[in-house]
């Protein structure tokens, strides 16, 4: 692995509206469920748990990478958090995208073994970000594709706490920004094992705890949205400004 950073992972944020009591989100159980997909479906989008069609799964990779800003220096150090079979890297290669330095992280030894076999030159990490002993290097941009869609039989409250913990941890290792997708409330059907989040709830958490600088895309035709959070970016290039359209001043 790369040299450890001195970055200390932040405190777990306080849940917005729920008691901290109750079962914790069983993400290790989810890893096992995903590995069962790999066994059944092999190295495809279905093998990392998607039930949507292949074109939609490919679109998610495109959308994730569209959060990278033009003004960022290249190469962009990219971490694919929960990389599964590294299909994002396959996408980058298939599209011939340049200027990205890809790394993957996953808690599944089976996916990582597959990844390392397919892409021996790529750096992969197997650390648990929520383990306080974990040390990870810093990246420019971290993407979490499909990490929050499937909650199995975890409660909504536990899943939301887990989301906040993970996003806070990811924010600390993402120097310029990060992106994640989550299922929308604006859907035609629901399934109890999937997790849906109101846009405003995510926006409140991000704006209060992480950054005022973010975009929510619900424009690409899937039943989810992608949030891009920036520590730097557009605002950097702008002059300091009064910000209210006001009669005052």
């Amino acid at each position, binding site marked *: 692995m790369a040299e450890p950073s001195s970055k200390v992972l932040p405190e777990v944020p306080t849940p917005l509206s729920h008691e901290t009591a109750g079962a914790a989100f069983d993400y290790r159980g989810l890893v096992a469920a995903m590995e069962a997909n790999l066994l059944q479906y092999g190295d495809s989008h279905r093998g990392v748990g998607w039930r949507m*069609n292949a074109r939609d799964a490919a679109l998610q990779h495109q959308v994730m990478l569209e959060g990278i800003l033009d003004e960022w220096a290249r190469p962009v150090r990219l971490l694919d958090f929960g990389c599964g079979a590294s299909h994002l890297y396959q996408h980058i290669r298939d599209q011939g995208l340049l200027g990205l330095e890809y790394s993957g992280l996953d808690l599944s030894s089976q996916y990582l073994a597959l990844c390392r076999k397919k892409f021996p030159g790529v750096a992969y990490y197997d650390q648990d970000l929520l383990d306080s002993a974990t040390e990870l290097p810093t990246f420019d941009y971290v993407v979490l594709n499909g990490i929050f869609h499937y909650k199995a039989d975890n409660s909504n409250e536990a899943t939301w706490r887990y989301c906040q913990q993970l996003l806070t941890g990811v924010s600390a290792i993402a120097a310029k920004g990060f992106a994640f997708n989550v299922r929308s409330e604006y859907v035609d059907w629901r399934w109890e094992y999937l997790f849906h989040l109101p846009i405003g709830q995510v926006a409140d958490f991000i704006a209060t705890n992480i950054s005022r*600088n973010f975009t929510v*895309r619900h*424009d690409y035709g899937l039943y989810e949205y992608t949030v891009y959070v920036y520590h730097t970016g*557009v605002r950097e290039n702008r002059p300091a400004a009064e910000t*209210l*359209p006001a009669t005052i001043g």
Partner: protein
Amino acid sequence: MVTDVSMQDDLERLTREYGASLSTHGVTPGGVQWPNASDLATRYEVLLSPLNLAGGGAHPVRLLDLGCGPGFLLDYLQTNGLLERVDYLGVDVTEATMGHARARWPDHRFELRDVRLHPLPAASFDYAIICGVFNVRYSNTHAQMQALVEETLRSVWMSVRTGLAFNVMSKHVDWERDDLFHWPLDTAMAFCRQHLSRHVTFRLDYGLWETAIQVSRIPAVRSSKVPLNWLPDDTRKSGA
């Protein structure tokens, strides 16, 4: 063109400040109550970003500028070399403001019109932007302002072929002001999904305390290829 705009009460409350303000401040962004000029340029840049005007195109974009004020969008387009890229119509509701627009841009089209009472022809534009119309509600209640916003958007939506963009104040601020219109993202999304389209982007990434909301009739363009090893079980189903 509609010449006899009998102004609805909510619009009258919204626009009564501007006449005096333009006299005091002159025809500047300050004259239409914006705090400064560079932020207005940023707002235009963000609202127009889905059009990629700088990228060129076979035909000018038929652009509706609702709440055009003294025609500042045309200044912005000219300064950025984009004026030739649009086929422009500016719409507003007060004679005084529109007089400034016509005097400053005599070769461009402007109309006095409340689009809620007199909708523009269906699909007569490619895109509409509504900049700074919904941020301040003055003495309108939140409910009155929300009704004005929703009625306006529904009317404009019928007249655009591809989409529209507008700004409102964000809820994600340190404090809210009583005379501003802060529209929660989920309320806006629920409205868009029901009456406009579910293909919506919320931008809060440009450093102002507002949200730019971009609504499109069609989903974002797909450029990614599908890995061949993913396809077998899908081709049967979707014929993709």
